[in-house]
């Protein structure tokens, strides 16, 4: 059953390509995607009890290529299938050469699902390369000239980073003699710690780069890709591509647990969380604001995953799922708004609510989710992230939430005001997935503990008093956020900070500096 998840999308992509845009085939591909979503739910239920294995070609698991699904990868597969379904429905009536676009999307989906299901670390490298390549081509699909340039920088940087990864894998193979992740974990537990430092830092440099974590420049070309990327692709970039990097991070930090340095990643998470929030506030382009918001939220996820506390880790994992869904909603809403208004400038768009009530409500629900309003999914994941972490870290997370509230004020201003007339019709296939995604936010909040139990097999319960306390903090930050927003909106120099840029050589330099710092830190 497992190969179907990888082969299926590839086959559909090829059929779409051969039939070159046959209407029936297009409709069938969406039906196939719905089937894949159903199959991934089946996989979620299967992996609750055991880990599902599949050895391709019936070779021994140490020699052959292994697909395996544990409870974590099943969640990621489900997330991928879910978000791709939303995007396929959203782009259903787009006029560009549909079948080529769909073809690439299906290949990307196969690569991402393969990444989550593969059981050996060399295939992780292969699929990371394939998915990067496809996503770069997709972001340049509209041939916007800035995107071609930043796409080239992004691709070259990724090749450089992936060479670090490959070199690290070489060291790992030299130590273990196997490519299988499970077998390697067993062998590494008994290996001398000093041997592990170099492979760990080499691999983590590349992974931190992929997660957009390295201060301060490495995520710049990626962020610059958003404004010109086709609508669905921007959602995948921030909803899924970064999540796949976080999945690799989780895999390899488990593998290297004897030498892992989670505290370093907590610090990185704090830096990128705050910095991303400030940068998000400085933007006037909707898509850039959302892109920087992603960087800030990845920081929060990193804090949750690395704080070393049980509940906090579960909260971090749940925040991955939540963030993928609300960021997809927001990007799809943003692209509808941009199409209707013909501009992406947040200061010129007003009266969205009057013109597009359904889209606005969905976007507003997503905003409430991301800032952690009570009864929304974001509040549940933030509640668990802050459940058992140390006091000082708790304070940092509160500041981070406050910053999130401030820049989403800036985002929400465009819903207010009067609408002017426009004759662009809003397609039903745009509104349906957005509305559905918006409603899942509320469901994810109300049934939060049950969903966490279902996804991560970890029974959690919410302490009513603690939740109430956090709700009070939330309302206090909303009030404080409004005041800060009023004040900060008048500061002029923030805008010039927002247009920060760096050349290719600076970006490579930051990669090298990060590698050296990390090697020194872990080694000493």
């Amino acid at each position: 059953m497992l190969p179907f998840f990888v082969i299926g999308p590839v086959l559909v992509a090829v059929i779409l390509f051969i039939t070159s845009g046959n209407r029936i085939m297009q409709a069938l591909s969406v039906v196939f995607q719905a089937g894949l979503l159903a199959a991934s739910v089946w996989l979620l239920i299967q992996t609750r009890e055991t880990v599902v294995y599949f050895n391709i070609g019936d070779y021994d698991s140490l020699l052959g290529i292994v697909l395996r699904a544990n409870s974590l990868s099943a969640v990621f597969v489900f997330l991928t299938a879910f978000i791709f379904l939303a995007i396929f429905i959203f782009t259903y009536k787009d006029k560009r050469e549909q079948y080529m676009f769909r073809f690439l999307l299906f290949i990307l989906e196969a690569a991402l699902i393969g990444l989550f299901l593969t059981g050996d670390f060399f295939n992780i490298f292969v699929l990371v390369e394939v998915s990067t390549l496809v996503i770069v081509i997709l972001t340049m699909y509209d041939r916007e000239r800035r995107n071609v340039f930043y796409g080239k920088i992004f691709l070259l940087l990724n090749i450089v980073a992936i060479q670090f990864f490959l070199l690290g894998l070489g060291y790992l193979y030299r130590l273990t003699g196997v490519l299988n992740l499970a077998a390697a974990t067993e062998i590494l537990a008994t290996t001398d710690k000093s041997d592990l430092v170099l492979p760990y830092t080499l691999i983590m440099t590349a992974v931190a780069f992929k997660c957009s974590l390295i201060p301060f420049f490495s995520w710049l070309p990626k962020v610059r890709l958003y404004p010109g990327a086709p609508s669905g692709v921007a959602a995948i970039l921030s909803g899924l591509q970064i999540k796949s990097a976080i999945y690799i991070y989780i895999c390899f930090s488990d593998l290297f647990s004897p030498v892992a340095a989670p505290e370093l990643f907590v610090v990185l998470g704090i830096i990128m969380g705050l910095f991303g929030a400030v940068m998000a506030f400085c933007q006037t382009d909707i898509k850039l604001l959302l892109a920087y918001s992603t960087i800030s939220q990845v920081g929060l996820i990193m804090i949750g995953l690395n704080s070393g506390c049980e509940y906090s880790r579960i909260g971090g994992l749940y925040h991955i799922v939540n963030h993928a869904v609300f960021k997809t909603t927001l990007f799809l809403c943003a692209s509808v708004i941009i199409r209707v208004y013909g501009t992406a400038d947040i200061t010129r768009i007003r009266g969205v609510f009057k013109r597009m009530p359904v889209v606005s409500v969905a976007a507003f629900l997503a905003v409430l989710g991301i800032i952690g309003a009570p009864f929304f999914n974001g509040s549940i994941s933030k509640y668990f992230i802050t459940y058992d972490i140390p006091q000082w870290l708790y304070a940092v997370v509160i500041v981070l939430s406050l910053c999130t509230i401030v820049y989403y004020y800036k985002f929400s201003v465009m819903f207010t005001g009067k609408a002017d007339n426009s004759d662009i019709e809003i397609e039903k296939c745009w509104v349906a997935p957005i509305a559905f995604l918006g409603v899942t936010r509320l469901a994810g909040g109300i049934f939060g503990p049950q969903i966490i139990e279902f996804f991560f097999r970890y029974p959690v319960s919410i302490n009513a008093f603690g939740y109430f306390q956090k709700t009070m903090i939330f309302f206090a930050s909303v009030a404080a956020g409004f005041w800060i927003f009023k004040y900060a909106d008048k500061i002029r120099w923030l805008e010039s900070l927002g247009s920060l840029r760096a050349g290719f050589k600076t970006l490579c330099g930051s990669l090298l500096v990060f590698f050296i710092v990390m090697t020194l830190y872990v080694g000493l």
Partner: protein
Amino acid sequence: MDISMFSIILFFISFFGVLFSNNIIKTIISVLIMQTATVLFWLTLNVTGTTPEAPIIYDPALLDDIQIIADPVPQSATITAIIIGFAVSAIVITMFNSMCRQYGTADWETMERLATGGVD
């Protein structure tokens, strides 16, 4: 000198090539050398002398004849890496080619100024 050590040195030399070249073609060449260095490193893995650690499965009857065995897994892995590297570099070079014709320059800074229009 040990070949694996040599490949590491080559890797960092080419990295400095990436860091310090203003010309995009030189950058691409440096990246390609970097890939070659990584491939070289993989090929030197688990080449054993008298005590074969690899391949993982071996026939004890054969061991008497064979003194030096190279692990086949890194070899197949590097072939995959080379193929992927080929695909990626083909795309990078194609992108560079089209941009170079459009703007008539191969300099990073000039191209950035032209491609992004000087504004953000």
